[in-house]
């Protein structure tokens, strides 16, 4: 567990002159669980878009395990070992959870593999294990559009894990979940962090406190500050961007 898994240098992304990400520098160690927070419009999702290849950087470079990601397209980056969970759960609604997981899990991801490939027993075992883990084993064979929102969230995280990535990017995993479900997802992420590097984008401060070790705060497209939860919470600049300029002291964020 040494070396940087993700390094970002002087990243700028501009849309028609508007800089969604502005000269951002960021790095993450292998095996780290990092939480990225920031007010709306801080560039969090664009940041993830760039890492996963959905948006190409205007300037700057993104290195994943020392490899510049610029020439790769989304599916190639996914195959390199970056998995991404979207803000709203995106699973294949007309397929069953089992099929969803099988697709993500398959080793050969080309046309021929899909044509003639049979899922190996190792893959089937992985899928069955994952179904247990995300608690969807009883519903493994009904169409995913019949699942509830929380179940879809868990299914998508499961699909991510099935891809066996080295780095998981998780965008607001607990949006719209009940407290109980939130805690479950938190435990799931913590368990996953044992063996993966994870970057989580989140708004829910309770949840952040549950899982966070190191927190990065983004503001207007660049890193505002970085540190553990307490440091970040007491940083006056963070308080300012979250709560507005304060005349008197003594207010705390969150």
């Amino acid at each position, binding site marked *: 567990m040494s070396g940087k898994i993700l390094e970002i240098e002087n990243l700028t992304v501009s*849309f*028609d002159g*508007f800089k*969604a990400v502005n000269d951002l520098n960021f790095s993450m160690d292998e095996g780290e669980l990092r939480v990225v927070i920031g007010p709306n419009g801080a560039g969090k*999702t*664009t940041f993830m*878009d760039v890492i996963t290849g*959905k*948006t190409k950087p205007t300037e700057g470079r993104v290195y994943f395990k020392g490899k510049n990601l610029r020439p790769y397209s989304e599916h190639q980056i996914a195959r390199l070992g970056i998995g991404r969970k979207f803000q709203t759960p995106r699973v294949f609604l007309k397929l069953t959870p089992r099929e969803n997981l099988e697709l993500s899990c398959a080793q050969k991801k080309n046309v021929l593999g899909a044509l003639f490939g049979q899922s190996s027993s190792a893959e089937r075992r992985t899928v069955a294990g994952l179904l247990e883990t995300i608690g969807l084993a009883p519903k493994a064979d009904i169409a995913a559009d019949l699942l509830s929102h929380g179940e879809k969230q868990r299914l998508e995280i499961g699909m991510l894990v099935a891809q066996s990535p080295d780095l998981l990017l998780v965008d607001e995993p607990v949006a719209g979940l009940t407290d109980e479900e939130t805690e479950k997802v938190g435990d799931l992420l913590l368990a996953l962090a044992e063996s993966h590097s994870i970057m989580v984008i989140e708004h829910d401060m309770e949840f952040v406190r549950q899982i966070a070790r190191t927190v990065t705060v983004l503001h207007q497209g660049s890193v505002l500050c970085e540190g553990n939860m307490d440091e970040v919470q007491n940083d006056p600049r963070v308080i300012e961007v979250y709560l507005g300029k304060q005349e008197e002291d003594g207010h705390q964020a969150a």
Partner: protein
Amino acid sequence: MTQLLESLFGGLSIGSVLLLSALGLAIVFGLMGVINMAHGELMMLGAYTTFVVQNAFKKTPLEGFYIFFALIAAFIVTALLGLLLERGVIRYLYGRPLETLLATWGVSLILQQFVRSVSWQFIAGLLIFCLLFFGAMGVLSRLANFERIRGWVIGLMLPISAAISLTISHILGQTYKLAVTNPWFGTQGVDVTAPKWLRGGLPIVKEYQLPYTRLFIIVLTVVCVLGIYWFLNKTAWGLRIRAVTQNRNMSACLGIPTATVDALTFAIGSGLAGIAGCAVSLLGSVSPNTGQSYIVDTFMVVVVGGVGKLVGSIVAASAIGVISYVVSSNALGPLVGFSESLKGLFEFFATASMAKVMVFALIVIFLQFRPAGLFPQKGRTVDA
């Protein structure tokens, strides 16, 4: 030089027709993501409206200026039809663009056949049917348990009204014979003659003159583009339309009546099709198939121009027009006299229909570099 000017004007006159017909389509597509396959048929109806207006004005003092009345009439007729289409069909299909495409294709088939077979007898039958069926539905829908019996009512009233209206129109046909059964337009094309002052042409250069009708269409296109530009950018409804184009949900939250905006935009888009139809009626005879020959070209204008910006459609239409003209008139042939094979290649494509082959190839190549068209919308999109 002569060659250049000629290609430029020839191309512009093709491009202006393209732009005029694509304008309505582009606005509707930009706003609702809907491709209206019946757009060509709306043009065709605009052309037929011109024909009717022209006949109505024959031998009146205003005969020479019928074209202006025809433009207005064509706009109104097609805009109303567009409104009906949007309220009756398309609004149920938002978010399902491919289905809308198929539904509007169905509408276009119906419109084509309607123009072929419309006669007094036909109109009478249609009116009676509508009166009976929708009247009955209107009356019965006041019943408390209407939702439960709805299926039965439709199943019962549809054949009854159809039978009654068919019988009555049949009787009408028997009593008045040809006076009512004779189709208004028939399957053959009809001819619109340009007013006297539009005949002839403006000599641009030696041996090439720009026909006044073409010039009229170019002017008309400019007026329409300016009008639309003014409407979209300077009026309250234009602002609303632009708002909905950019973010439908947010606009709805701000209290913009998106349904009304949709209907209005669709009506305007259809009205523009009517004006375009009026314009193309000056170029040749009008038949029920007229619309078909325009739609694919106008779609290409939308694809190349990109969504959401008027200027994209303008540039795309001009470019496609000029390229088509240059290729089909073999203007480049003499320039490559040094190479026989290249010359042969240009000659091979030097017909109107082969020019289309060339233009399509160029469009596909163009899309390799600019998949979202000339002026794409940028920004972080929810959907990739």
